[in-house]
């Protein structure tokens, strides 16, 4: 055991190097050829398959599984990439238990769906390992499209546009592409630099220029883009983090879970990453789970997720909740933060109020609970920062504080499309962002050809 495992406060190096390595290894190790063959044999090749219907990118799942079963993994990969060029990442991070695998008829038949996600990873890994490129650019159209944000939506849009022969420029605020794939997802879901490898794989089609460190509203305006390009796609995600609205929130040790995860994902040495001995995470979504589990894996002794509603209301899937529980995270429900308790400006605890639903409305009961905490993570959602859009042109219409689009991704502004987490009505899933980016690209292509 490393020194400092039980050190109070926020400390780095709680574990040994081996423990970090073990804790952050692949959550679901890849299937080998035999395992993939056995699993692929379980697929019934359903008609109008419910799994495909459940997939936001509509991958022909029975076909790609049949291709695995017939020892044709590259053909299988192509079937996946035809619909979802980020099929490798989606295989790792999709909540398959609420999408394709929930719809699998074997879930209904025997409560044990075909492991679609792991099979998808098997096929896409095979293609990436072989560096098999399936797509070529069409003849250059001479049209230019600007994309804001190199996350899943922007990358999927860029790839499809490049396929159609358009010149694409991606402007990315961060120093690296990938968006939440690179900065936002728990490390054990996508280890070994996979996010960057996937970006490289899809960029190999050519015709896509990436400019890093370029932020909308800081380095360029929407007006610049509409002036210089034939079309614009907005896929910048959600830059804002919702505040707790609790007293004393500014204390040291109260952090955004999103920022902490981004920091962790970029850390070269996990031992250098400080974590509290007692950590409280406020929220009920995937980000809360990712932050809580990783805090435990970094050596935090007590990690508690506090969510203001009941288990049935949590956005995190049952699988994710079970994962957190199996890693020793305590999940408490019906608690909302009221006050951060600080010692010399550093968080030492958190006061929470019990909540209840009364006539369908959530309210505090007046009873409180105090938890000791060296570190508090806010994971109660992110928000779209609309300010960056405005000023340079006619403004882009919003809906519920996010960008309003039609079914093809068109915004209220001519020649401007949007997709991913920044648009209204989405489910904030990687796979949905990919679908929106791809479909917007097709819409842009039709508009430019017309």
């Amino acid at each position, binding site marked *: 055991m490393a020194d400092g495992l039980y050190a109070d406060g926020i400390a780095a190096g709680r574990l040994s190097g081996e423990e970090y390595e073990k804790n952050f290894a692949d959550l679901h190790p890849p299937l080998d050829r035999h395992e993939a063959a*056995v699993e692929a044999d379980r697929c019934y*090749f*359903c*008609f*109008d*398959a*419910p799994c495909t219907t459940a997939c936001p990118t509509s991958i022909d799942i029975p076909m790609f599984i049949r291709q695995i079963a017939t020892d044709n993994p590259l053909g299988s990969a192509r079937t996946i990439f035809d619909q979802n060029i980020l099929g490798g990442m989606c295989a790792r991070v999709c909540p398959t238990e609420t999408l394709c695998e929930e719809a699998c*008829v074997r879930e*209904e038949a025997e409560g044990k769906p075909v492991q679609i996600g792991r099979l998808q990873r098997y096929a896409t890994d095979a293609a990436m390992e072989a560096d098999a490129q399936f797509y070529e650019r069409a003849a250059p159209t001479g049209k230019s499209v600007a994309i804001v944000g190199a996350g899943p939506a922007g990358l999927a849009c860029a790839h499809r546009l490049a396929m159609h022969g358009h010149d694409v420029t991606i402007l990315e605020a961060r120093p690296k592409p990938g968006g939440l794939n690179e900065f936002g997802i728990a490390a054990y879901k996508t280890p070994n630099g996979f996010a960057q490898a996937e970006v490289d794989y899809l960029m190999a089609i050519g015709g896509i220029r990436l400019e890093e460190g370029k932020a909308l509203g800081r380095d360029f305006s929407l007006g610049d883009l509409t002036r210089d390009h034939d079309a614009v796609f907005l896929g910048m995600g959600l830059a804002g983090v919702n505040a707790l609205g609790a007293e004393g929130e500014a204390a040291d040790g109260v952090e955004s879970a999103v920022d902490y995860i981004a920091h962790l994902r970029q850390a070269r040495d996990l031992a250098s990453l400080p974590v509290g001995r007692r950590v409280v995470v406020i929220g009920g979504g995937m980000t809360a789970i990712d932050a809580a589990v990783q805090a435990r894996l970094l050596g935090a002794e007590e990690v508690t997720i506090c969510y203001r509603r009941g288990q049935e209301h949590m956005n995190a899937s049952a699988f994710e909740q079970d994962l957190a529980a199996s890693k020793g995270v305590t999940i408490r429900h019906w608690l909302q933060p009221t006050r951060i308790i600080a010692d010399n400006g550093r968080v030492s605890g958190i006061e929470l109020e019990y909540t209840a639903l009364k006539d369908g409305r959530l309210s505090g009961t007046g009873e409180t609970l105090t938890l000791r905490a060296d570190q508090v993570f806010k994971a109660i959602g992110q928000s779209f920062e609309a300010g960056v859009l405005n000023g340079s042109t006619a403004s882009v219409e919003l809906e519920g504080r996010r960008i309003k689009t039609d079914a093809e991704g068109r915004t209220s502004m001519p020649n401007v499309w949007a997709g991913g987490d920044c648009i209204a009505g989405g489910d904030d899933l990687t796979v949905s962002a990919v679908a929106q980016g791809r479909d917007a690209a097709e819409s842009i292509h039709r508009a430019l050809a017309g």
Partner: protein
Amino acid sequence: MADIRSNFVGIKSPNPFWLASAPPTDKAYNVERAFKAGWGGVVWKTLGEEGPPVVNVNGPRYGAIWGADRRLLGLNNIELITDRDLYLNLREIKQVKKNWPDRALIVSLMVPCEEQAWKAILPLVEETEADGIELNFGCPHGMSERGMGAAVGQVPEYVEMVVRWCKQNTRMPVITKLTPNITDVRQPARAAHAGGTDAVSLINTINSITSVNLDNFAPEPTIDGKGSHGGYCGPAVKPIALNMVAEIARDPQTAGLPISGIGGITTWRDAAEFLALGSGTVQVCTAAMTYGFKIVEEMIEGLENWMDAKGHATLDDVIGRAAPNVTDWQYLNLNYVTKARIDQDQCIKCGRCHIACEDTSHQAITAMVDGKRHFEVIEEECVGCNLCVNVCPVEGCIDMVPLAAGALDKRTGEKVEPVYANWTTHPNNPSKVAAE
């Protein structure tokens, strides 16, 4: 408890499960293990004439096809008859029979098609006190190129001739093993019967190439870049074997001739089906080669349980019971009408019944009803073909339900006739006979 003791042409065994003449019965070591496991009898792997034994290939001998989860469905082999010394085999046979007096021990034989050759080997086998002999007229590879095995079995006159020689030269019961590599299995069966055989056993293996290696374009199993057709067996051949058994069981010329059924028997149920079509005993090989000898426990216990449940006291209550129900197509009742019915509680909504019917049959199963994924039979279109039952992954989810006499067949718009009527009297039959 059902009594499954078998008495087959005077050969007694504690159960009807014998191991067929094949690699598992080539030597005392294996046969001893089989008897310890509970097998009722063994047909010792085929002996050839005295002299230097045959040689086998030294590369792969078996090829296979598989179903889902790599379950072995069909096996082929290019192994020949025993490649061990004749006298070594005879000594072992004698010892094993002495060790296991209650088990059936039959010796498979294949010598050149000359009377002298048979006259020479029969006394040697008799001396072992084995219970009987089986004439290998079936082996489809290698030996047939030398005028033996299937080369004899494919010529009824030779079959009759060799059987007669054996009957004239031994007191042992003679079982004639038939090859399926012919157009009409009744011909060699009749010939064996005419020659005086005590029983026939079938089927031997089927000429086959299991697969082709697509890297070197050679058939599997591949011996130094070349392959030869081998003998096919295993679950995949069971339907062919059942039909051939039934053909002999219902042929007036061979009716009553004892049959030892062989071909893809893997479970007690397979065995019961062979018995029902007229087999007195069954012979197993591929299932044992796939799973080991222990499977016989399931076979024995399963057969007994089924017989107890159905009130069949002895094998004689089962043997041949299904044979009278095997008939020619022209005698099938055309007034028997069934419709598929899908049990919605069991349906898992895979939709395979729909697409099979929609693409390849009669467009008689819905995919969507009131905007919902729902699979239901459209009786107006259903011809009762049973394809949906066969492609459904859930056993028992789809049933074929017969319409009662007088009920409306929505497809034809006519009521189901209460009487039996077949093609021979059907108005569309140009050579119909007047109904009696």
